[in-house]
């Protein structure tokens, strides 16, 4: 392959790039978000400066992604820490688990989504919206929520505001000698969000301590509620909010 063509590759490997160029459109992207109060000191420790924690409430969320352009069909689970950056409300994505290489590699390499390989499942079981996460064969999280108890709620403005909020990731890529080549806070805003439905209700969450999937390091003090959403949306490229090497 010619040198000039090498620079046009979207990703490794040359013969079969893991992910194509973005942006990436998702259809019927379904969320289960369980918010809970945790330990303020543990949150401060988990959040990179200069981000500032916004209270002591965090969230664990499951995503079912049946149709992700360039990525395929897969599932994910994540831990989200609400925070502020220069006063602007943001969501810091502190941990993320997926079962599919293109979003795993693309997530880490483009935006710094902190993805590891884990088996997340989000499905409706009888009367219960159920999220599970297994890591290295062991259960790490189980979340349950009532199914569409407020089906006729008219005002979905809070959910729209949540989906519009800037997501922040800590992108770390080493150089070939092991020193950091990239160390940035990256800001991401979903585009063309179509909210197909949103429901709130009672939820419960169990986090199990696991060293390589440490969701339970932000312990569950009290669950404050569940949120179930179905969306179509576009994941565009991001922007550098803060460069630790600059």
């Amino acid at each position, binding site marked *: *392959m*010619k*040198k*000039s063509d*090498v*620079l046009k*590759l*979207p*990703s*490794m*490997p*040359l*013969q*079969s790039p*893991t992910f194509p*160029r*973005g942006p990436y459109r998702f259809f019927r992207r379904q969320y289960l978000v369980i918010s809970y109060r945790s330990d303020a000191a543990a949150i401060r*420790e*988990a959040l*990179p*400066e200069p981000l500032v924690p916004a209270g002591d409430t965090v969230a664990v969320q499951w995503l079912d992604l049946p149709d992700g352009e360039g990525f395929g069909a897969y599932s994910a689970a994540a831990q989200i820490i609400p925070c502020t950056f220069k006063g602007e409300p943001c969501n810091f994505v*502190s*941990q*993320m688990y997926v079962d*599919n*290489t293109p979003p*795993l*590699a693309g997530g*880490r*390499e*483009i*935006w*710094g989504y*902190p*993805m*590891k*390989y884990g088996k997340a499942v989000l499905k409706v079981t009888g009367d219960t919206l159920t999220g599970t996460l297994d890591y290295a064969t062991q259960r790490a999280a189980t979340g349950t929520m009532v199914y569409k108890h407020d089906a006729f709620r008219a005002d979905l403005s809070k959910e729209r505001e949540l989906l519009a909020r800037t997501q922040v990731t*800590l*992108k*770390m*890529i*080493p150089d*070939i*000698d*092991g020193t*950091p*080549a*990239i*160390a*940035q806070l990256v800001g991401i805003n979903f585009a063309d969000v179509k909210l197909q439905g949103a429901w709130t209700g009672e939820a419960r969450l169990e986090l199990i301590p696991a*060293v*390589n*999937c*440490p969701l339970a*390091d932000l312990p569950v003090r009290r669950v404050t509620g569940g949120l179930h959403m179905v969306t179509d949306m576009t994941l565009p*490229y*991001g*922007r*550098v909010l803060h460069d*630790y090497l600059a």
Partner: protein
Amino acid sequence: MTPEQILKLPSMPAASPSYPMGPYRFVNREYLIITYETDKDLLREAVPEPLEPNPEGHVLYEWIRMPDSSGFGDYTESGVVIPCLFQGQPINFTAQMYLDDEPPISAGREIWGFPKKYAHPKLEVCSDTITGTLHYAGQLVAMGTMAYKHAEAPGGIEATAKGMTKTQCNLKIIPDVDGSPKICQLVAYNLTDITIKGSWVSPARLHLIPHVNAPAADLPIKKIVGGKHFIGDLTLPHGRVLFDYIKDQAP
């Protein structure tokens, strides 16, 4: 978490880095390597300039069992390696790699640019046959078989250990957050502290099945050259940049 702590992180996520700092030590690493001859035009297309593919048109298809790998754990890998020349010197280019463990996928891609994807390779002895298989997205894409320890490799374990010191390289591509190339380099490394415990050659066969996301069969098999099986301990250190596609091509 302070900026000083962040800059000391070996990898993402900060809450639980995927991989620690290198180097990485591998104990009882077992290889099945089947060498074959392929189409030279297709081989040229699969090798990034300024590398030159070997004039014989040889390709190595490999399975590697790694039961004890510091920082990474217990996993199996399979892939395509192309012997090349860089400025006239022999070098092995890793063209494709498939494995079943996330830390070596992320570390491999992010540190050295190993072109790794998640899949299910397997290397095992099935009665009289060393058998390697690779499943990608539920489908079989490669199956290699080799007779079991028919003859010691020429030159014995010393020659195999020496062969393992050969410089290896990858094409490391990391996009910037706006999608433009941030890192685009040929990266080289040399394994160190190599102890080979056994090395054998035997007849072998290889079957590659066309698959769009695991396209080993894009380099078709014209003729099997031979099979090699060996076990050893080794260290994978950090590497060095051989060629930078962004800087070295800048006007």
